[in-house]
């Protein structure tokens, strides 16, 4: 492999590694999300520095020109990271859904309580069942990610 391309690859991978570490150090990136980045930077750095390893990898999967193997690995990591983010976004979307529902329920309860405190009649005519808290243990909604009561 050409020495220049190896040098570029090493500098690129090392720069990525340092940048990720710096982001974590400055608390701009949660460790949870940094791990995959660190892993990909380390693997790329390793393959860039260790030529023999890269060549063996390229031979094993049938890539004629070893530096292409490096690009291939980098691309695989990019795909993995994107999938990781899709999963993270899905989780956030679901969590914000639950939060929105909780906010709506709490706001309604607050309004109802304030109305009652002011001595107005409740807005809903004949909200009979809604009167007392009819919660048994199983009915309590727990926050996302919380351990459930039955765990204990």
């Amino acid at each position, binding site marked *: 492999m050409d020495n220049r391309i190896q040098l570029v690859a090493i500098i690129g991978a090392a720069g990525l590694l340092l940048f990720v570490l710096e982001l974590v150090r400055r608390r701009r990136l949660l460790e949870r999300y940094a791990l995959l980045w660190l892993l990909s930077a380390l693997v790329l750095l390793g393959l860039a520095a260790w030529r023999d390893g890269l060549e063996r990898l390229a031979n094993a999967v049938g890539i004629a020109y070893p530096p292409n193997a490096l690009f291939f690995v980098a691309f695989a990591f990019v795909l993995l990271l994107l999938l990781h983010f899709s999963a*993270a976004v899905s*989780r956030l979307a*679901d969590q914000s859904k639950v939060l*929105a529902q909780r906010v709506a329920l709490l706001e*309604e309860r607050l309004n109802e309580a304030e109305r009652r405190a002011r001595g107005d009649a409740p807005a809903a005519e*004949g909200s*009979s*069942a809604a009167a007392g808290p009819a919660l048994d243990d199983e009915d309590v909604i727990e926050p996302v990610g919380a351990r*459930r009561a039955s765990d204990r």
Partner: protein
Amino acid sequence: MTCVRPDSSHLAVVPAYNEAATVGDVVRRIHADAPEWDVVVVDDGSTDATAEVAHAAGARVLRLPFNLGIGGAVQAGFVFAREQGYDYMAQVDGDGQHDPAELDKLVTHMREHPELDVVCGSRFIRDNEHRYPAPISRRTGIHIFAFLLSRFVRQPISDPTSGFRLYNRRAIRLFATDYPHDYPEVEAILMLHHHRLRMEEIPVRMYARGGGQSSISSGKSAYYMVKVLLALFVGLFRRRPLPEPGGGAPVAAETGI
């Protein structure tokens, strides 16, 4: 009108997104035609006066801070019903499609068949007498879902997208924990099947929308079709369809990778 036992409580959940034109009438009609029902309107992040109109009409109002889509809005109703300890919950759409006078029919059917957890009002059981005026594209989609679901759950399903359904406590608890997102009614049938809850359809009348815009335009409905089909097939292979007590939280993805 059937005699309703005073010790059971009924909640009508009206999901509404920018339905200020019709939601007031819907609430008033429920109060008039089904007086033993409490009404809660779920305002799904509307930008018009939906919440004010509903409140003025005498409903309790859950205001979602932003638009969650029909599934998230109805689920807020399920959570409300569960927390307030209602025995029965029904969904009545805010656009005036559903006839509150038919709520009684659903309840009566469930009382006659106590083994049922969900009673669903279907537009298509009674075929020629009262044709439901839906666009042909939509009807085709509905029939495809009906065909697939009937095979999946080994029970004839004629109207899988009907939201006019009555739920008992078990079903309320299930769907308060986990309810699908788009066209939730279709996937919900599969969830019921997975959890061995029983459901039956009875014929009801439905009207064309009273006003406002359907949340599902024809362009979008193709997109939803594909999405729901994906959800259905993935749902078939879900190892644990429902987050069980002590299991992972009901959130789309686990923490980390």
